[in-house]
């Protein structure tokens, strides 16, 4: 049972993280890898980069807590949550949630739970920088709130 939590400006290698996950989950029959990326959002005035702010003293602890909650609900072999902070250009990876479990059902459900809860409880904030030079904080989405409370 190994959890890997990374909060860092560095990007991740999906192949590298998959190999690292498997190293701790040799018997896993189902693995789900979720990657979130920076999207342009609006074709007329696209996002060129995001700035990810976080609360360093709390972030990793909040992610560990989420993984612990997921482990109470499902039997999981190994979990990786990698979240980048700082400036991230459009098209780049922001977040990885990787779950290895015995079967696909646990892996899919735990993966969805982790990303839904991360979006509403982990202390990260996004600021968007647009092509026209403007920037602004991203508003929390009601749909994200509903997705997360669906697990309660």
């Amino acid at each position, binding site marked *: 049972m190994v959890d890997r939590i990374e909060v860092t400006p560095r990007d991740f290698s999906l192949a590298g993280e998959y190999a690292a996950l498997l190293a701790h989950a040799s018997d896993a029959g189902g693995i789900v890898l979720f990657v979130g990326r920076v999207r342009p959002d609006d074709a007329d005035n696209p996002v060129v980069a995001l700035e990810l702010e976080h*609360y360093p003293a*709390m972030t990793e602890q909040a992610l560990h807590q989420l993984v612990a909650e997921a482990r109470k609900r499902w039997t999981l072999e190994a979990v990786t949550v990698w979240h980048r902070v700082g400036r991230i250009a459009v098209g780049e990876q*922001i977040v990885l949630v990787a779950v290895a479990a015995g079967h696909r059902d646990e892996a899919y459900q735990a993966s969805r739970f982790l990303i839904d809860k*991360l*979006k509403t409880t982990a202390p990260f904030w996004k600021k968007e920088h647009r092509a026209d030079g403007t920037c602004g904080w991203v508003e*929390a989405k009601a749909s994200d709130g509903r997705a997360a409370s669906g697990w309660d």
Partner: protein
Amino acid sequence: MITVLFFAQLRETLGCEQLELEASNILTVAQLQSQLQTRGENWQKALGDERVLVAVNQSMAKPDTPVGDGDEVALFPPVTGG
């Protein structure tokens, strides 16, 4: 003393990243928020927003969560990671 931290747009709106408060008149998160709101119109409005989240010593807190000397209290807008 109580250390108070502000993040994201709350930090920008208030023009304040961190401050120290005398702990003697503060027992709960709600009392801390009320005291901060007396610092000006800007503070009253920004901290009166019911969406503002609070963490005490890095754990999510509620209005009646106790606060005391040596605690770290963080106030921030709804989170938008992922």
